[in-house]
Each structure stands twice: as structure tokens, then as C-alpha cells.
């Protein structure tokens, strides 16, 4: 993950029972480290399908929107291209960042990682 310091700050906001659960989960993970096999880099198609089913099942069951998922615009274009519908593609392109929206960008780009 990119910003672990932010996460450390987040942990401080947890109440006692949340912190206890957090410790339990992270401890279990630490304990399993030595037993962990080399692991896989990709899911098989069947596992990918299982993952989708589990995700959909969770979203359907959650009572109070504990998790809300969103997407940025690029996916809309990807989806439109998959449909092959020219009007959809044009609308998706319209929603994209413009070619010159960052003109004069050099003024704000002196910050380095």
C-alpha cells in the first residue's frame, strides 16, 4: 500500500473492541507467515469466478452499506469499447479528461515524489 502512515493514524481512531479485532487479525496473519507456501501470482479462471460470486454475495447481504464501491471514468470508456456501441464510446470519451485541461501544468509540477 502507498501510504502506511495514514493507516497508522486511522488505527488511533478505532474504539477498544475494534482495536482488539484488529490485533487478532494481524496476529493471525503474522503467525501464519512461517507456514505460508510460495503462493500464486494469479487466480485461475475458476477462482476468479468464485471471487466474483463472493463479492456479489457480500454486496447483496450487507445491511447498512458497510462497503461502497465506485469507479473512475476510464472504466466507463473500457466498458463502452467492449460494447462496441459508437455513441456510448463517444459519450465516454466526452467524460474523459480534456487534452489541454492541464495546460500551464508546469506551474504546478515542481513537486517530486
Amino acid at each position, binding site marked *: 500500500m502507498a501510504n502506511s502512515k495514514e493507516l497508522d493514524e486511522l488505527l488511533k481512531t478505532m474504539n477498544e473492541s475494534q482495536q482488539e479485532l484488529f490485533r487478532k487479525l494481524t496476529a493471525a496473519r503474522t503467525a501464519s507467515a512461517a507456514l505460508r507456501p510460495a503462493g500464486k501470482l494469479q487466480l485461475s479462471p475458476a477462482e476468479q469466478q468464485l471471487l466474483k460470486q463472493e463479492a456479489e454475495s457480500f454486496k447483496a447481504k450487507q445491511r447498512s452499506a458497510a462497503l461502497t464501491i465506485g469507479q473512475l471514468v476510464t472504466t466507463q470508456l473500457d466498458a463502452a469499447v467492449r460494447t462496441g456501441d459508437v455513441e456510448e464510446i463517444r459519450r465516454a470519451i466526452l467524460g474523459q479528461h*480534456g487534452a489541454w485541461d492541464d495546460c500551464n501544468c508546469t506551474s504546478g509540477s515542481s*513537486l517530486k515524489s
Partner: protein
Amino acid sequence: MSDRSRALRAAALSWRASRFTVATALPGGDLALYNSLTGGLARIDATSEAFVVTAAALHAGFDGMPQGALAALALEGFFVPEGRDERDEVDALCAAERAAAQDRLELILMPTEQCNFRCVYCAQTFEKGRMKRDVIDGVVALIAARAPHLRYLKIGWFGGEPLTAPEVIAEIGRAARRICAEHGVIYSSGMATNGSLLTPDVFAMLIENEVRRFQITLDGTPDHHDRLRLMGDRKRGTFATILNNLRAMKATDEWFGVTLRVNFDAESAQAMTPFLDFLETEFAGDARFHIDFHPVGRWGGPQDDALAVCDAQDSAQRSIELAGAAIGRGLGDAALRGRLSVGGSKCYAGRPYSFVVGSDGALYKCTVAFDEPLNQIGALTPSGELVIDADKHARWIGRGAEEDAGCRACSFAPACQGDACPLARIRSGERACPSVKSQIGAAVAALAPARGRS
């Protein structure tokens, strides 16, 4: 697959947070996540078990087949199997971008280099006039020659003020539409305009020619705007004229997009609350209009020394704060969303299929450094041939995300691909990061999905 074998396969899975996942706490304690490789956004209720489970998984990873919230998050790429090198996927994105030059062409055309405004921060010299006949013919011939091999053609109109030469836009636009229709090319077009000449009749002509995306500048409240953006006589303000045209566009049922660009300086930055009130009244709830804040910079114009510019860090922070405030008021968020999307912070000048064509047929890569010799990469001939200095062009097509050690370690690399500003990299030899990267937590917080909309 049996339950046992499935369990055995799952046991071999170990997960960690994606190197491109960014987490931030929202006011009120909810957790917001963003992944720059997948474009995923997520919001997790601070009172839910999913909150703790996710925090633990972000901290230490987890084993086995993901369950519950972790399954939904893994599906969106926030977690990946341990050992996967996601940098390979960024390399693939960059390679795909280079390959796209085969079937994609983006032209930024300058139908005139004259302008009816004299903005105090402008760096343009207005030495060249209307696009010449042989250049118009060259543009049309280029499109006709490339069309059989293209999937996408995008034309951006730039200037000067492009709408001081509407007949050039209409002529090339008509030809581009016809040629693209004949060859099944997906054609789209947009324009950076000051908006003063965008009357209903002109707007109708542009829509007819598929110019549907506009960048129009309003630099704050009328007094601040009229201080910064003046008519050519350097006396009259321009706010009221632009606003009338925007209102007329809004009253139509056409589909189009307007980025309202707001350049703020140290003075106008202090008066943004009433301006946001005004924007909310005029445009909130109409997704065709979205707001994009930029600090005024010393861009090379004759009045640079007199400009009250904000410093880089302050202005980056202020830009995102203002974007968040605008989004919170129901104004469109497409500009900020675009900047965080895959490739959305990459400059057009770094794309191998993007060329700027001046009114005299000169070819450039970048629209902010016309006098830079390295930006003068060639010319368009009347027969439609792009005569390009390949060595100069290659300088603009960077491999930052693949070769720069800092970019390879960066969580934002899929969004800018190491090419946020090729001009800055060429000039200094160092990467130039997009300003939004330094404010990524605030940007993610501004875009976090509202609860219950998944």
C-alpha cells in the same frame, strides 16, 4: 473442483494491499480507498466489521480465498496476490499507449493564433493569424490519408481564440466528420475557448460538427475575472458575456461537457466562497458542467512580474480544497476524476499520436512552449504529410514509468505514466510530478463514493 481441492488451492493464496492502493480517513472516520491502476474507489463505514477487517488486511495482508468485504475489494484490485509484480502491468499500459499510435490520431489545431482577449497572465504573442488555405487543405488530406487505418480521431481546437475563425472550424469539422463516417472512425472534438463568441448560433454550428467538449475559463467573481481576463482593448471586462453564453448552452438539451476552468491568484483565492455560491446556483446538478481549479502562474507573459501568484505547495493544496468544496456543492467532479484515472494525469504531449498544428502548418507537441526549439518538431505539408524530426519527437515520448526509478516506485504511476509534463522533464532532466499527487489523500476524500451507491 471438490471442496477439499478448492480449500487446498485457496490455502496457497496469500494477499497484500496493492502497491497502487491509497487509503485515507474521511471526516467522520470512514475509510476511503483509491487504486490508481484499476481506478477503483471505495468507502468503508467506520462502524462496520468490514472497516477493521480491511484495516488489518491493509496493514498485514491476509491468507486464503477472500471473503466478504475483502472479496469485493480484491475484485477491484485493492488487494493482489502476494508476489505479483504490478509494475509489469504499468509497463503493459505504457506499451499499449505506444502501440495506440497505429490506430489513433489526436490533432490540436490552431485555426487562428489571434485572440480577442488580452488576459494579464497570457504568454502568447499573437504573431500569426488565421490558418492558411494550404494548411487547411493539409489537415483534411492528412485525415483522409490516415482514416483507413484509424479507430479514433480526436480534434482539439486551440488558439489564440479559435472562435475568431469559425469558418475554419466548420470547414475542417465537416470534412473530418464525412471522412470518419466513410471509414468507421470514431470521431470526437473539443475546444479551449474563452467563451465570449460562443453564442447560440455558433454553439449550434459546433454541435453539428461534433465539437462537444469545451474548456471555458471563469476566473472567480465578476470583479476578479474582469481584472484578469480583459477584452483586446484591455479596458472592458468579459464575465457577463461569457456567462450569458454558458446559460444559453445550459438551456439546451444537447449532450456536451464544459470544464469551467478557474485560474486563481493570491487575491481571488480569498474570494472563492461567494464564487462557489454563484457556481452552485448556476450549474449544480447539471453533470455537463464541471469545475477545475488552477493557480495562476508566471507562464512567460510580459506582465509576469506583476502577478500575485501563490506558491506551488499552497496552490496545489488550495486547488484540491476548492475542487472538494465544489463537488460538495453538487458541481461536476469529472475534472478531478479524470486526473486520477489511468493515464488521466499524463500530458497529451507525451502521447505518440498527439500533434499540435499551428495556423502556419508548424508542428508542435506542447501548447505552452511554442518558442522552445525542441517543441518545433516539424511541419504539415499541403498534401497532408507530417514531416517530423524523429529525434525531437522521441524526446517527448518518455519512458518515465518504465525507466525512472522514482516513477517505478510511485503509487501514482498508472495515472501519469511518468509523463505529467514532458516539457519539464526535457528542460530539467528530472521527472515532474502532477500537483494532484501531493494532495492525493484530499483528492480521494473529495471523490469518495457516497454511502450505499455501490
